[in-house]
């Protein structure tokens, strides 16, 4: 009940997120936060109108973070949309939303996953037992089991780069400038201005997680689970086939 009251502004307020509705972290979550600089609250704004679906961010993330084959910390979901006999392509970059009230954290039985005081949600893979409870709890399918470390894995906003004063790899590499990263605690930052001035949306607002990845131009049809014809492509099956092909060759 507490949670729904706390998240009422974002949950019930359809999808629109204005600066006025940005509430702070729940008290218990804020207390549990550790590491990072509390002076910052890192966030991302994704302008889907500028995304060309080149997947450069997907590749940059894999290279930067040594993401294992067949796994993705970020990906640009791509859809063909037909309306009134005209077709178009819709691109939707997805990543961990570094929520203000992340449902992945309270379920963790060992405290391996936690939120830093700058809002970044991370996993200590030396503590994680790989129980995958957080994978189930994430409403965005943003987490997975890394089969090299056998622990939970996800986007960290490239925390190692951010701590060194750099941008996340996906932001750095984005050719269209669709990904904007910055500090919500800095009123002069681009993300703060966008949050204040634009009609931003978040994914699955009804979950009450208060994502800190915002979208410009997010079509409501793609805000939750997409009602469409699924992709036939399964990376692991594809890899198995490629491997089998190589062995035959």
């Amino acid at each position, binding site marked *: 009940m507490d949670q729904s009251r706390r998240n009422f502004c974002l949950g019930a307020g359809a999808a629109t997120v204005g600066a006025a509705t940005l509430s702070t972290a729940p008290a218990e979550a804020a207390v549990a936060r550790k590491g990072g600089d509390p002076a910052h609250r890192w966030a991302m704004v994704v302008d889907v109108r500028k995304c060309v*679906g080149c*997947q450069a961010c997907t590749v940059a993330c894999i290279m930067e973070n040594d993401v294992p084959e067949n796994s*993705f910390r970020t*990906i*640009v*979901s*791509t*859809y*063909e*949309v*037909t*309306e*009134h006999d005209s077709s178009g*392509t*819709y691109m939707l970059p*997805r990543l961990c939303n570094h929520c203000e009230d992340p*449902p992945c954290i*309270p*379920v*963790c*039985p*060992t*405290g*391996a996953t936690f939120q830093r005081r700058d809002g970044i949600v991370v996993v200590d893979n030396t*503590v*994680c*037992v*790989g*129980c*995958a*409870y957080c*994978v*189930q*709890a*994430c*409403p*965005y*399918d943003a987490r*997975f*089991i890394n089969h090299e470390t*056998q*622990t939970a894995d996800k986007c960290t906003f490239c925390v190692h780069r951010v701590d060194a004063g750099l941008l996340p790899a996906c932001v750095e590499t984005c050719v269209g400038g669709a990904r904007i990263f910055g500090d919500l605690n800095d009123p002069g930052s681009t993300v703060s201005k966008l949050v204040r001035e634009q009609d931003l949306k978040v*994914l*699955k607002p009804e*979950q009450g997680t208060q994502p800190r990845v915002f979208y410009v131009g997010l079509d409501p*049809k793609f805000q*939750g*689970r*997409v*009602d*469409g*014809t*699924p*992709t036939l*492509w*399964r*990376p*692991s*099956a594809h890899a198995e086939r490629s491997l089998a092909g190589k062995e035959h060759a």
Partner: protein
Amino acid sequence: MDTNIVEIINVTREVAWLPWAVQYFFLIGLSVGGLLLSLPGYAFAREEWRRLGRVALLVALTCGLAAPVALLSDLHQPGRFWHFYVVLRPTSWMWWGSLFIPFYVTGLLVHGWACFREEFQQQGRVDSRLAALYRLAALGGGRNDRLIRGTGLVVLAGAALVALYTGTEVAVVKARPLWHTPFLPVQFLMTALVGATGLVLLLNRFAAVTDHEVEVQANRLLAGALGGVMVVGGLWLALGLFGIDRTHAEALESVAKSEAWRVTAIWAVLATALPFVIAVAKPKGTGLLTGLIAVHSAWMFRWTVFIGGQTVPKTGAGFYEYALPAGPDGLLGIVGTAGLWVFLLLSITALLPTPPRSAPHPVRAVPAADRAVAAE
């Protein structure tokens, strides 16, 4: 607006709770169900429940010992299981589970020993090379109803905590509408009772001599449990179907368009209704059939919830594909767990063979006063 969306690029998230988890929830459920069925005969010393209770206790012990192995295997880092015990994480039901499971299993072992103590004592009187070991296991005593009742009540508390945590752990996952229902813990418990009763029927059937009284008793219990499953399932369906509750409606909507889920639903209804009708119409001589269907039904429920539930994407279109791998994360895990259970069953029944029914009742020396307490 007439819109057609085709997903061209997205990622399939593999199931993260593996068939090991299905095995765990199945076995621990059957163990809890078996324990509940054994309590009237042992902890409450109701003689007419004693023979059924003995079979049920075997179910509780064998499944309860095999279950934690399956759970440990479901961790991707099983060697780090001790990490659960060096932190305080009261917000995580899984963390609570890590406390409840050892409490329950230890209690179960102590209770099992208390229940079987008179059999140990009896075996110790037989002229065999193992007699000394049996006497040692009996710790110089025989049947002690007070001890049985005391340990029974403790392990009942453990079973209640296990039933609570296993159900709630899954039901709190808001991200999966199919799981996020207060009915789920009840459904897990009811289907666990179905599975445990089914396994009692099977073990009774495969014992040296089938006990038809136990069969009829278990079939009646099975009918009751199946009735409960149908009522709870019907309520869940009604909430979704009539849009009374949004989460339930979402859950139903997430799978309604799938042919595979429709087949699963029909299968589930048949696997519940059919043994119910048989158990009511002909409780004698049908134990093998109703038992098999009941055990299968309890397992299928968990398979559908866990593996089926994880094939429903949270954001993507359609469904994720799932094919059962042959290795440890799939078929081998299922067969291996079943093999462990068979090993435990053979070991326990080899040490403690079913007492012959024709023989006079073993060492009965319970004072009348005790009996009166037990009957209250």
